[in-house]
């Protein structure tokens, strides 16, 4: 996915909950790329500016799985606190 598409997806999937300044995404993507979690490639577009696509690396996939697990555990813990017995 490329930067602009990521922003749109983030907004759509969160039902517009995550509305952020679009430019703030790029430092994050560049940092992830620098950490080896993402790779990038430029793709030509006919009659439009080229797009820079980001792909997860195997290290990135592992990190994503780890972060998802951590997040889910956190949500479960919060639910237990806020809704005891549910």
């Amino acid at each position, binding site marked *: *996915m*490329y*930067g*602009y598409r*990521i922003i749109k997806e983030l907004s759509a999937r969160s039902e517009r909950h995550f509305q952020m*300044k*679009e*430019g*703030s995404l*790029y*430092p994050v993507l*560049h*940092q992830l790329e*620098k950490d080896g979690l*993402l790779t990038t490639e430029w793709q030509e577009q006919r009659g*439009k*500016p*080229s*797009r*820079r*696509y*980001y*792909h*997860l*690396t*195997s290290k*990135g*996939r592992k990190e*994503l799985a780890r972060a998802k697990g951590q997040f889910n555990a956190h949500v479960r813990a919060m639910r237990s606190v806020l809704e005891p017995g549910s």
Partner: protein
Amino acid sequence: MRFPIDRLRAQLRLPFWHRADIEAEVQSHLAEACAELAQEGMEPAQAEATALERFGSLDGVGEALQAVHRDWSGGATVRQALRRAIRKTVRHVVLIVAYAALNLASFPVPFMAVLGLSSILPPAVTSFRVIGWAIGGVMLTGWGLWSILVAYAAVRAIGAGTLTGTLIGATAAVMVAALGSPHWHRAPWHYPPGTVRAYVAWWMLASIVAGSTVGGYLGARSLRKAAVESREPSAQDRGSA
């Protein structure tokens, strides 16, 4: 359409090719946003202003990107490349001196092989270790270990499959054995059986055959492993990025 992103550019103290890459990405983002807004019926000038407004502070984004790529300031990458080149040159000089010191008759062949090896091995296996193994292999275990290294390098350079690599190694070993070597003086079967020289010659032949076969197999296997690791991510993975 070119968007005025001078404020972002001003924050980036990076080499021009790196800066151009970032600028192109931002320009592409703004163009996409602008086109979408225009499609929704907005006037071009208004669409441009809105796209810039939605993007946020160019100063802030530029500053954050500069912080991410701060290693570039002062040409750290160029320095690193220079250090690598110096290390490589030193390594080659050490190799030449080492082989000259050993005064091996077949100097050019093993030298080229070690040179090849030092350029293709993964970083964890340092070239100096390889040189150590090669010299140690020659001195301590005859030609066996040496053959492993040469076949490994050859197969990796050729890019052969596992079975083909093993066959190449074995064939090379048989060819070397058939052609003889400046160190053997004579093939093992020419020495009187039971003599020390015959045993040494047979040991050399056996170690070359075994070593080349194992080296060919290992080289091909490492290539296959590297190919699997570098495979493009699947469509599903792309979707999750």
